[in-house]
């Protein structure tokens, strides 16, 4: 038989070695070809008496199967729900056939029939559908290759394991382990998997296939544990076992705490475990496929797949990189300024494998900047996240110095000195005097226009902005800002660099605040306006959290400090003069900062008090100056106001071309300021509710709260034409 995605080699014992090897791909994924081939092989395997058993393995060094082809899932368009269910159930049907040998479960229960043995031999990643295929085998054997990882990442894109994973895993490892694996989506190594009972054995890589065959040969007639009479869930189950009752109550509660009701996949995974553990296996996998179909039929998974997986990967692979510029080799990077940003940049650069010259005016400062990396490495070693050797090697790559001559052989400069045009101009001059003529100079400014800074450069075509977020080692986004004069090579180099440090880049236009800093302040201002109106701070914070924001806007304002907010407001006012558009929080900030001394977290408290050794709590003094209104908005109204303040600013940025495409607007929002990931980003959200619905709602909010909510004209035009952002882009 001719297969496309796999090859079959039957040995003299009649054991088929099935090698999965998708042509033209570096990694195996579950796609249509593999599904088709697998189903065909299983039919042949069951009917062909000369084949006694099978070992499934991969022809890729990257591992077994890394999961489903998300492009296939994201694009699936069934005409009816029934059809969508049948499609979804196909995988379960195929896997079930393999594990039962095509026998009805009644015959297996009675011991009247058995299946031919199938073993999975895992030598690397076995994730999602790949792991589910392995779980449907009668035996799983992993090599001692440290790259072996198994798990269910589906939840991270709003899906659930839909190939029997929510049923076989708990039947092997218990409900609790299954809930952890499937709702958190974190992969586990082979030893952990073996400890939980989902991998049977770990052997040296060289013996992997032989050992798998040995097991197949020794077990000619097999039945899965759940197809045997008297099967019981490890650790208690099904769902009505008193032990499971406690587990389910706690699991649902913890999941609600974590998801705030925004991620139906998590709830449905628990439903699969709950409902599936009450009924026989064949019913259980139908239930699983139904919940899977439900998720796939709703917009959330599609939005999450598109932004968090497809577009993120495309951006990281350099979609916006000028194709003609050859790959830039970056071995050594000069980081100018060892303050908080410079220190963080030095760390991520060294972690990305590059040498770092960390330069500051004062050797003590430079050393202090390196100490930041030392602290992170130390913590990592303590927690076992990084080996001592790797940590030491990382630190050895960072050289703190005050000597500009140390920059003479760097391949890239990243400047992160004080945000003052004069200081920057001086540093640019001194640096360009020593670095090679080809070296790209990147500035990490967050407030100064790149085009203006580039005027200080002798080589403005080699000058570009790379805007990091604080703390640099934690924040996944960088904004890349070409100035008017920036050449293609500067953009290519910046993207090559970002790829090395494994962050997500978006390319944005050189305007005040770029993208993220254009959107976040209006959002934080909205929250302050709400406080000013007498809306309970707790309601504002909880509304944001329930919207899916990682922290409340008032807590975030405390972190960045109200004082800084006031200073930026004042300097903007000064700079723009008559053109300044009042935000309405001017007097509020004045009261908070000047009158009440509520400057923020680091200065004794802002919206919150920060009692030592205790959790922060909202400062109730605020109501003395901004009395609580008798009429409080509903949760939905508060959420909407906070959401639309972000949508309005993001839409304006897109309309003005600050971000050139909805993909970047979505990525920047989620990875830049933590915009609710379940939406897939602000543009995805607008598309999901419909541009016309967005426009109508914005206009209604503008009437109630102010012009700032009005949609850009471009969005009104799109609404009229019935366009969507993603289709139009």
């Amino acid at each position, binding site marked *: 038989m001719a297969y496309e995605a796999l090859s079959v080699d039957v040995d003299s014992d009649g054991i088929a070695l099935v090698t999965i090897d998708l042509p033209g791909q570096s990694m195996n994924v579950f796609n249509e070809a593999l599904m088709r081939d697998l189903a065909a092989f299983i039919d042949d395997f069951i009917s062909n008496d000369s084949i006694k058993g099978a070992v499934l393995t991969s022809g890729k060094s990257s591992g077994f199967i890394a999961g489903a082809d998300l492009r296939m899932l994201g694009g699936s368009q069934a005409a009816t729900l029934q059809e969508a269910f049948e499609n979804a159930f196909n995988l379960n049907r195929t896997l079930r056939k393999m594990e039962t040998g095509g026998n009805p479960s009644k015959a297996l229960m009675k011991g009247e029939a058995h299946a031919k043995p199938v073993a999975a031999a895992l030598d690397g990643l076995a994730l999602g559908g790949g792991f589910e295929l392995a779980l449907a085998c009668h035996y799983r054997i992993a090599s001692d290759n440290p790259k072996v990882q198994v798990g269910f990442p589906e939840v991270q894109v709003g899906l659930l394991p839909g190939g029997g994973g929510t049923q076989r895993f708990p039947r092997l490892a218990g409900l609790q382990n299954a809930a952890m694996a499937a709702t958190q989506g974190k992969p586990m190594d082979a030893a952990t998997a073996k400890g939980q009972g989902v991998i049977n054995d770990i052997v040296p890589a060289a013996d992997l296939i032989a050992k798998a065959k040995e097991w197949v040969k020794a077990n000619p007639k097999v039945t899965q544990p759940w197809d045997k009479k008297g099967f019981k869930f490890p650790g208690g189950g099904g769902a009505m076992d008193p032990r499971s009752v406690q587990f389910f109550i*706690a699991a649902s509660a913890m999941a*609600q705490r974590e998801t705030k009701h925004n991620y139906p996949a998590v709830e449905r995974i628990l439903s699969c475990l709950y409902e599936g553990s009450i009924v026989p296996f064949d019913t259980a996998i139908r239930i699983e496929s139904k919940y899977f179909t439900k998720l796939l039929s709703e917009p959330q998974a599609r939005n999450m797949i598109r932004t968090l997986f497809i577009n993120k990967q495309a951006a990281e692979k350099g979609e916006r990189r000028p194709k003609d510029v050859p790959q830039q080799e970056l071995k050594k990077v000069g980081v100018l300024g060892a303050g908080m940003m410079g220190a963080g940049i030095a760390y991520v650069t060294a972690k990305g494998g590059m040498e770092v010259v960390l330069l500051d005016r004062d050797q003590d400062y430079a050393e202090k900047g390196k100490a930041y990396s030392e602290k992170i490495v130390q913590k990592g070693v303590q927690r076992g996240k990084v080996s001592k050797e790797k940590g030491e090697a990382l630190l050895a790559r960072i050289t703190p110095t005050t000597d500009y001559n140390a920059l003479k052989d760097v391949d890239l400069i990243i400047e992160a000195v004080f945000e003052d045009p004069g200081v920057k101009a001086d540093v640019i001059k001194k640096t360009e005097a020593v670095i090679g003529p080809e070296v790209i100079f990147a500035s990490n400014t967050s407030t100064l226009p790149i085009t203006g800074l580039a005027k200080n450069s002798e080589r403005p075509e080699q000058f570009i902005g790379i805007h990091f977020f604080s703390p640099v080692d934690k924040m996944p986004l960088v904004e890349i800002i070409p100035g008017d004069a920036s050449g293609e090579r500067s953009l290519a180099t910046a993207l090559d660099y970002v790829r090395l440090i494994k962050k997500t880049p978006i390319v944005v236009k050189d305007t005040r605040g770029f993208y993220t800093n254009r959107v976040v302040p209006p959002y934080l201002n909205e929250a302050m306006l709400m406080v000013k109106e007498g809306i309970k701070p707790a309601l504002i914070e*909880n509304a944001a959290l329930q919207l899916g924001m990682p922290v409340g806007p008032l807590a975030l304002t405390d972190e960045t400090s109200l004082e800084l907010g006031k200073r930026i407001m004042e300097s903007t006012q000064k700079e723009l003069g008559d053109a300044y558009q009042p935000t309405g929080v001017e007097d509020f900030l004045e009261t908070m900062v000047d009158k009440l001394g509520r400057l923020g977290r680091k200065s004794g408290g802002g919206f919150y008090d920060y009692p030592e050794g205790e959790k922060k709590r909202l400062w109730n003094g605020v109501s003395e100056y901004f009395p609580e209104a008798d009429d409080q908005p509903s949760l939905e109204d508060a959420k909407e106001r906070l959401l639309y303040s972000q949508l309005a600013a993001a839409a304006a940025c897109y309309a003005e071309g600050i971000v050139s495409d909805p993909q970047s607007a979505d990525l920047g929002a989620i990875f830049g300021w933590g915009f609710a990931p379940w939406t897939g980003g602000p543009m995805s959200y607008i598309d999901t509710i419909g541009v016309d619905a967005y426009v109508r709602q914005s206009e209604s909010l503008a009437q109630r709260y102010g012009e700032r909510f009005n949609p850009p004209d471009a969005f009104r035009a799109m609404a009229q034409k019935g366009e969507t952002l993603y289709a139009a882009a």
Partner: protein
Amino acid sequence: MTDAFVYDAVRTPRGKGKSDGSLHEITPISLGAQVLTAIRERNEFDGGDVDDVAFGVVSPVGEQGAVITRGAVLAADYPETTAGIQVNRFCASGLEAINIAASKVKAGEADLTIGGGVESMSRVPMGSDGGAMATDPAIAFKNYFVPQGISADLIATKYGLTRDDCDAYAVESQKRAAKSWKENRFEKSIVPVKDVLGLDVLATDEHMRPDADMQSLGSLNPAFAMMGEQFGFDSIAVQRYPELEKINHVHHAGNSSGIVDGAAAVLIGTKEAGERIGRKPRARIKAAASVGSEPTIMLTGPEFAAEKALKRAGMTKNDIDMWELNEAFASVVLRFMQALDIDHGDINVNGGAIAMGHPLGATGAMIFGTVIDELERSGKETALVTLCIGGGMGTATIVERVN
């Protein structure tokens, strides 16, 4: 419609709901049978006169399963013609059983009925019946399920009831219960529980702590704080009540109802049925109502149930002389008083479940009997009996004394 009269009410004393409690050796079916036997013997009627017996049971599984009421009817040597039904409306089961028994009389479906309840919490622990509401993720998520202790703390947080408020209420409950026992106020209803030898094993409520004071209660740690934080229930409560920053945990074993064993029965019938068995009615059931309320805060139903029952009776709250609300948690009663503006002197005058315990399925019938006794003792006319209920419900019954 026919009037439903109350002819008598009996209850067992409440035994501590643990393996060292005095009633632990008594089977639940025996508890049920003993109150049925007592009410028949006291009223000297032939058991055959009773059409139907409704018992509340909250964990109707194991030895409390399979319609325990029918078993108790037979165990109490009622004739086989007397039917039995088991009722579950969580904590109001006992009162709902009375309402059902009364409704049958009012509707002309029966002449003489018994409503009551039984629960041996020491033998069939709370939660033994599992159930989907807390366990099935689909419904737990949808309803923002939290356990009752969290709901009680949520009430306290939302309505500004402090730990001291709740503790002070609990101390008063203990004092009132102790005083009532001392003055023999429960004498009319209490039926000592006997063992298989016919010897008394318990004649008084054994859960009470009359010496409890603010200081002793103050030393107790909040019971639901850890659960609320560790398992995320606090977060769920705040998600439903986002105007709150956090949940203030004020309840503990000392200001919450006690876990106990016990049973109760109330004899209800038409005027004619009373005449036939030669008993004078003690009270008349004026109206009853059950409501659903917001399930996360869960325990605020009594206020709405009371309002509904009053409306159905054509009464206002000023027409009620005496209130009885099950003391599931101190905050439940305090919030009820706050919502309906009820003086503490007019509610739970003989103490309640914080002092004497809350045998889930039986409590409604027990406090109903207590109220009949108290109306007669005090000479007052009307009373409203109500209980808060799991899942967000409330049941209330209005009675008036007839002689």
